């Protein structure tokens, strides 16, 4: 479904702020697979998702989505195949538009937009049904401005919007990180429910080890712009939180080792 081939991305190349965020990343996702991505801060998780979504074009490599080479496609064009939920609850909705209008926009993701009414009776009925399933009481507030809702409510709606039309690929980037624990649980529950129900091919970034072991059928650990570990099938199912913490510890030690080696070299030669 998704194939990322030898993708590289360097920010601010040739300057002191140069960051090699993706270093020849290879990743292939089967249709219907639910992949969790973990990794330390700055390891390139968001950059990978952004590269797939087309937020920027990559320096080299190729990205194939549903058999099509989308490497040169602008973000809005890829969006026809991709549903997205961002970390920031403010990013996924238009605050001054009503709940219904936001959903109506999502109901035409990737389709043309002309001079037909954005809202009609049929769509409204559908909205009420779907929004009711959130159990947040929002079905009676469809004409309220989204800006008046809480982060958790907005994130739940963004999730509905991203999956209103079944996407070929769903991208979730720490989409519960900004929420309080209860809302985060709610949104995570909703996410896995939708993903399993619609068999959505999913890439989900998280810092929660609990989520990482409980969810998904494959787990990828990134470090310094590379994929360091890739657990699949039985191996993924056997993973426990402690195993993951152990892997992080290994990474930390290796980094320390790198640094002390660099320090030693500096002392010897500089």
């Amino acid at each position, binding site marked *: 479904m998704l194939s990322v081939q030898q993708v590289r991305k360097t920010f601010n190349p040739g300057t002191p702020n140069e960051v090699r965020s993706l270093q020849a990343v290879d990743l292939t996702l089967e249709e219907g697979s639910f992949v969790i991505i973990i990794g330390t801060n700055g390891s390139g998780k968001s950059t990978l998702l952004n590269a797939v*979504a087309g937020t920027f074009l990559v320096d080299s490599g190729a990205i194939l989505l549903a058999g099509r080479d989308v490497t040169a496609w*602008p*973000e*809005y*064009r890829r*969006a*026809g195949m*991709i549903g*997205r939920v*961002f970390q920031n609850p*403010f*990013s*996924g*909705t*238009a*605050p*001054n*538009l009503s709940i219904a*209008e*936001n959903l*109506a*926009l*999502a109901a*035409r*993701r*990737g*389709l043309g*937009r*002309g*001079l*037909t*009414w*954005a*809202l009609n009776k049929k769509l409204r009925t559908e909205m009420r049904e779907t929004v009711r399933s959130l159990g947040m009481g929002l079905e009676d507030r469809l004409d309220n401005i989204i800006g008046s809702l809480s982060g958790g409510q907005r994130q739940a709606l963004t999730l509905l*919007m*991203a999956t209103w039309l079944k996407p070929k690929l769903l991208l979730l980037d720490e989409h519960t990180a900004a929420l309080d624990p209860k809302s985060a649980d709610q949104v995570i529950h909703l996410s896995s429910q939708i993903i399993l129900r619609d068999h959505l091919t999913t890439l989900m970034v998280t810092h929660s080890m609990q989520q990482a072991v409980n969810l998904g059928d494959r787990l990828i650990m990134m470090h310094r712009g590379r994929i360091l570990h890739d657990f699949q099938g039985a191996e993924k199912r056997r993973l426990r939180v402690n195993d993951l913490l152990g892997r992080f510890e290994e990474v930390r030690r290796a980094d320390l080792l790198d640094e002390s080696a660099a320090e030693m070299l500096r002392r010897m030669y500089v």
Partner: protein
Amino acid sequence: MSLLIGALTIGFILSLLALGVLISFRIFSFPDITAEGSITLGAAVTAAMLVKGVNPLVATAAAVLSGFLAGAATGVLHTRFKINGLLSGILVMTSLYSINLHVMGRSNIPLMSARTLVTYAEHLGRLLLGGADNVSVAGWEVGARDVSVLGFSFVAALLVGLVLFTFFRTDLGTAMRATGDNSQMVRALGVSDADMIVFGLAVSNGLVGLAGALLAQYQGFADVQMGIGMLVWGLASVIIGEALVGVRQLGYLLAGAVMGSVLFRLMVAIALRWGLDPNDLKLITAAFVFVALILPGLVDKMRTRSAAHA
């Protein structure tokens, strides 16, 4: 009394400008100074065609189209060539100055003898009012022509407002409103925010061009200088309108812009009547917009400060 009617008429005509500014400034948060060039462009195109005997409807439509193109040009400079929004507008506005002179062939075209939409409106009014030269409105004797033209400008503002209200509730219009609100989300939902900005600025300046066309036909001339200060006038109308309606909902915003424009013209007429030097008008308008722009921030600050003290 005819002073009042005149102010109302200009208020309704310039409410088309206010609606255009509402789109660029409030929907896209884009301070689009192209308006100062495109209002003149609309006037110039219409006047140049009218003196050649072109049908006023065609001449007015041409003004809308030319404003549309001017706005699209600013949008393309901004989105395709990544030029700062204000600068894109300044570039187009400056080019329009030369273009307008070319269109007109000189710096001023009088429309005294030309048939215009306003003369049509006067004819229509004469038919409706039974041919009288004067009519009495609430006890006042007013010229039938003045009333007809006022009615015409009111209908024009009403129609345009309704069309916009309808448009902004379609798929395309909703996507356009969302673009100004959250462009990241709009892209993630498969809409090119760049295209929306180009189209939105085009629509905005199309309206401004229409305002210019009607203004020229109303005042009986087009002048290459007539656009100066118009953006700030439009902003003042939008801000007054928002204060009047108080709600940030689509229908209210549109109605507010029209009402704001009319109220603003009335205030200007009264101030001039009281002896305000016309030369000071732009300075005072700019000062007014300045205060209106910083006032909400100041009030917030004072509120949080007093809340912190409490």
